[in-house]
């Protein structure tokens, strides 16, 4: 007899594109290669860097140095911490690990009486990887930012076809594009349309280490993320 009642499960905002079925091994053939990395955990971290103990606590809990420079990304084997504003950072990791971290951070903030907070926004965001020789050209079709000028280990928050996105560059191979779940269908179709002249393909993403976003290399495989 099937189990009754509320049985929640996670579903990618792009599940209707059936990307897993379409995915193929990546080749260096000049095409644009793209795939989604769904179901990651995201938390907004707010605090005052002038307060003693804030940066230390974040480093102690997450193992990531608090990036203080505009647009800087701090990357570790277990997650990334991105500068989004002078008093705001985005923490990304696996959902369970993120939940542990935010609980520890909130506990630390309360114990040290720091004017800081964490807000879980895992349900509101998703991530895609975009690669291939012309991936910058695709972004330039859609946005006004000089995407080729993003240094390694930096992210930029800008608009692609009016939708706010964060473009994260961790290596020369491709970029991670972070966007809202509510805009996921729109952004995905935009990227696919802009990539059409160069050829667009969904790639299998292989995880090296824990997760491609954390381990720097671009080959995420969505099925591994929840493992």
């Amino acid at each position: 007899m099937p189990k009754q009642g509320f049985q929640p499960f996670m579903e990618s905002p792009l599940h209707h594109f059936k990307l897993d079925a379409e995915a193929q091994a990546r080749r260096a053939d000049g095409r644009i290669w793209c795939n989604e990395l769904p179901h990651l955990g995201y938390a907004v971290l707010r605090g005052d860097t002038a307060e003693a103990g804030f940066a230390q606590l974040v480093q102690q809990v997450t193992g990531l140095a608090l990036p203080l420079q505009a647009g800087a990304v701090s990357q570790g084997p277990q997650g990334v911490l991105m500068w989004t504003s002078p008093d705001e950072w985005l923490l990304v990791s696996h959902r369970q690990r993120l939940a542990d971290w935010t609980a520890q951070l909130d506990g630390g903030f309360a114990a040290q009486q720091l004017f800081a907070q964490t807000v879980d926004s895992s349900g509101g965001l998703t991530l895609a990887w975009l690669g291939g020789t012309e991936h910058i050209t695709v972004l330039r079709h859609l946005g006004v930012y000089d995407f080729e000028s993003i240094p390694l280990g930096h992210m930029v928050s800008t608009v692609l076809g009016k939708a706010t996105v964060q473009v994260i560059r961790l290596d020369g191979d491709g970029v991670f594009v972070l966007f809202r779940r509510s805009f996921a269908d729109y952004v995905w179709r935009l990227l696919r349309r802009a990539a059409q002249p160069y050829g667009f393909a969904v790639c299998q993403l292989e995880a090296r280490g824990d997760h491609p976003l954390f381990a720097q290399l671009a080959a995420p495989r969505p099925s591994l993320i929840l493992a």
Partner: protein
Amino acid sequence: MLVITCPYCQEAREEEEFSYAGEAYIARPAVPEEADDATWGDYVFHRKNPRGWHWEQWQHVAGCRKVFAVKRHTVTYEIAGSWTLADGKALYLKEQA
């Protein structure tokens, strides 16, 4: 299109990323209880709308989401600079003095 430098992101960005947030440094009546209706009317509704240099607020909505001050010429659209609200206020008050 304006190219505005965000003092927080420390980069020149296109106007598309920003949202206009009105005239900057509108002084609220110092003693609200004693302000008459005319003073409140001016505070709420009357703006300078100058022909020339204008101090205004812009918000970097697609970036750091901070509001900051920009000094812009309303005829030539030239931008003299952009500052955080606190830094800009010092300059603004010096100019007004």
